Structure formats: C-alpha cells, structure tokens
C-alpha cells in the first residue's frame, strides 16, 4: 500500500462524488423554475440508489470473476472479499477502489437524467435506474475495466469514454425517444431559469473532473499529472471552440461556453492516460466542433433529449474513444495510436465504440419501454403542467 496513492484516491473519490450534485445543478439551471428541485433531486437519488446497489451486487457484476467475457460473478456480493488491503496489482485499499468506482456508476446515471427532464415520474426513474446500472453500466465496466471481452480485445478506456459517456449519452437518446417530448416543446421557448446555477454546476463538474480523470491513474504519479493536464487543456480548447462558433453565429453565450467545456472533458476522458498535450488540443478541437454540430442536429430534428447528454457526452465520448486509437503515444503510457504507426489499437477502439454505442442505445431503449409499459415513465399532463417540484416532491423551489 502506498499512502500517497491512497491519499489521492481518497480525495478523487470525494471529487467525483461532488460531480453528481454538480450535474444536478448544471441541469437544474437549464430547466424551468417549476422543475428545479426535481432536477437536483434526481441526482441525489442517483447517489442514494446506486450507492446502495453498488455495494450490494453491482460492484461484483462489474469486477467479479469474469463470466464469458460479459459480466462479473457474485464473488464480491455485499463486499465479501473486498478488504482494507490492496487488491492484486494495486497500491490502494481494495475497498477504496470499490468506492471510487461507485462514484462513476452514480454520475453516469445522473448524466442520463438529461433525457427525462421536466417530465419523468420519480418512481419510474428509480426502477429504470436500477435496471440500467445492472444491464448497461455494470456490463460496460466489466467489458472494459473488468477484464471483459473488450479489454481482452485490446480496447482502452482510461476514465470512462465508453463506460460513462457513450453509455449515458446514447442511453439518453434512447430514453428521450421512449419518454417523448415535453408538452409544448417546439411550440414555445423553454428558457433556462437560472443560468448562474448552471455555471456553478459546470464549475463543480470541471473541478471534480480532476478526480475523475486524474484519479483513474489509481496513483499519484506522472500519469495522473499528465491526465489532469490533458483534461484541462482539452476542455479549454473545446470551450474556446464553442465560444468562437457561437460568437460567429450571434453572441458567445455562457451556456455555449460551458457546454463546450463539458464536451471537451467528455472527449478527453477515455484518452487522458494515453495522449500528450498536442493530442489533447486535437481532441478538444474536434470535440468542440462535432458536439456543436450534434447539438444543432438534435435541435433541428426536434428531438427533445432535453439537456443534451447525447450531443455532449455521447458524441464527445465516441470521438474521444476513437481518438485514443489515433493519438495514443508511448511518451505517456504503453500504447501507441495510428499517428505513431500502430493501427491495431484504432481497430480495437472502433469495435469497442460500435459495440457500446449499439448496446447502450438498444438495451436502454428496451429497458425504458419495459418500465414505460409496466408503470409509466411519465407524469400526467396536469402534473407536468404544474411542474415536477410540486407534483413529484410537493415543494416549491423559491419563495
């Protein structure tokens, strides 16, 4: 056990935990006043529900002994065999690795709430969430980090480009199609009720991402340092791209800028442990452009994936995961990408991206449909009209 590494992951765990209410605030500022509490509360419910689920069985599904390359077994059920000593090959307590991973599961579900903003029934979301972590998230973790089939294939995902962002982004798209548009979407404008709240949430995400990507080195070393540097640089570049593009098209809106930053963060996530600063600049640049186009496309198509988890996390994560295959460099880690003469990695990344995109979309669609048929995903028209704060939580945000 290394006390420096342990100190860093203890902190990184706290940082990633804070990101989930960060997502809540980020989203809540963009919805209407009558749904502000509901949006934040969904993120808190993610913490509570996934927190319990993870220690009971989901950690084991993700990291238990491999079953057919697809899922873990129940050897870590109720944290059996998850001790205070380091697991094999690690320098931090096994139980610390477990909770660090827990926070990733939590935030991934929180990102998805974008798709159901201002219209989801809380009870249905809880059920959906439990299913989704079981059938989408835990398998993805296993495939890429739990020695599953994609890991064996050689696919890389440093801090969750596919595990977190592709899964939540394409999951959100599927979920949005199942739950349907908000009443009045496309008819009248739904203005963000509190932009400073969104900027605060975005700042907390940015802050927490140091733990998210830096912590994924699982040690306090040069790799962790490189991860936070490329993470920050990519976010700056993508933020700058959105600022410039929205400037060209009108005015540099703060929501554009912060969305660009998040797009850059999502895109660099899978690559943070494999690329250098030049790679980070390239990733941020392309992420900025691609995600902006995706958002535009989504709006023009009239799809109410309300807070753009798909355009930002889904497309950002997809691009970043592919970019690993391009820009990975041995100057940083043991892997080389296409630019450094290795085509195998890119192939593995393409397979992994295609597999996760399809799986995330299809399985989420099915799960959402099941929940919708069984208990209804959506509140009644009347409840939607008065807002979820009153109808779901019996509360009023501001008085």
């Amino acid at each position: 056990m290394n006390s420096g590494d342990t100190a860093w992951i203890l902190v990184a765990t706290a940082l990633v935990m804070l990101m989930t209410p960060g997502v809540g605030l980020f989203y809540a500022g963009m919805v209407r006043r009558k749904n502000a509490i509901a949006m934040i509360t969904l993120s808190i419910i993610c913490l509570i529900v996934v927190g319990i689920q993870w220690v009971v069985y989901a950690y084991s599904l993700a990291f238990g002994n491999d079953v057919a390359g697809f899922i873990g077994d129940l050897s870590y059920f109720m944290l059996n065999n998850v001790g205070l000593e380091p697991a094999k090959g690690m320098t931090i307590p096994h139980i610390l690795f477990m909770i660090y991973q827990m926070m990733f599961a939590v935030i991934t579900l929180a990102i998805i709430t974008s798709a159901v903003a201002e219209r989801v029934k809380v009870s249905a979301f809880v059920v959906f969430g439990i299913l989704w972590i079981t059938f989408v998230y835990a398998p993805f973790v296993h495939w890429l980090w739990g020695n599953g089939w994609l890991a064996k294939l050689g696919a890389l995902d440093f801090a969750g480009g596919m595990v977190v962002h592709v899964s939540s982004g394409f999951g959100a798209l599927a979920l949005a199609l199942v739950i349907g548009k908000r009443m009045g979407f496309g008819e009248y404008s739904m203005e963000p009720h509190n932009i400073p709240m969104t900027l605060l949430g975005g700042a907390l995400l940015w802050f927490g991402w140091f733990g998210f990507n830096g912590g994924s080195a699982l040690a306090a070393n040069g790799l962790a340092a490189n991860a936070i540097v490329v993470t920050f640089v990519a976010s700056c570049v993508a933020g700058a791209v959105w600022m410039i593009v929205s400037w060209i098209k009108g005015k540099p809106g703060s929501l554009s800028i912060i969305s660009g930053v998040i797009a850059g963060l999502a895109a660099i996530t899978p690559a943070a442990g494999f690329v250098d600063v030049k790679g980070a600049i390239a990733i941020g640049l392309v992420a900025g452009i691609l995600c902006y186009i995706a958002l535009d496309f989504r709006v023009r198509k009239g799809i109410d994936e309300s807070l753009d988890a798909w355009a930002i996390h889904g497309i950002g994560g997809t691009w970043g995961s592919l970019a690993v295959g391009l820009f990975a460099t041995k100057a940083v880690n043991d892997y080389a990408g296409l630019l450094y003469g290795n085509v195998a990695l890119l192939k593995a990344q393409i397979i992994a991206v295609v597999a996760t995109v399809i799986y995330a979309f299809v399985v989420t669609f099915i799960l959402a449909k099941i929940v919708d048929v069984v208990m209804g995903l959506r509140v009644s028209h009347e409840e939607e009209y008065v807002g979820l704060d009153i109808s779901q939580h019996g509360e009023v945000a501001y008085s």
Partner: protein
Amino acid sequence: MKMVLAIIRPEKLEDVKKALESKGFVAMTVNEVKGRGEQKGITLQFRGRTMEVDLLPKVEIFMVVKDEDVDTVVDTIIKSARTGRYGDGKIFIIPVEKSIRIRTGEFET
C-alpha cells in the same frame, strides 16, 4: 383611455406579444403573478407536514390604449392566448382618466 389588464399563461406571452405587435400595439407592462380561477388546490409537503398550494404562475400584461382600440386589443389577446383549456385567463377593462409621458410631460385623456 382604458387599461386592458390581461392575466394569461406564461408560455403564451411570446405569442400574445407578437400578435399585439403585428396589430401595432407595442407599449405594454408585464408582470409575473400567481393566480387561481376555479381549479382545485394541490397538496404540498415539507418534512412530513402538508400544506395546500393552489396558486399557479401567470403573467399579467397591461396596456393603456385609446377607447376605440380596446376591442381590437381584447380580440387580439383572446386569439393569441387561448388554448381552450382551463387556466387560459381573464381580461379586465379599467377606466383610465389620464396618461402622462414622463420624458416629455405630455398627456392624453
């Protein structure tokens, strides 16, 4: 002159504004209010305690216009604010004796 005071759905404000504008009525004062017509109340809860909340957000618009314009304005508001469901709102016509422009001091009656 008359004050046309309308209580409408918040989401209809843009439509109403545009409709009035297209008829040449630009000047207006707008205010966020809460109101209830005949709807039933909704039960709220705060840490176990419950309370009734029955006021829903509405937007209040008022325009002071010449007597002869009242009907046009009212018609325009009705057309642009109506959804046909409960909660569409009301318009009240109130007499105004005088209207003074602060910038110039000029007045109309």
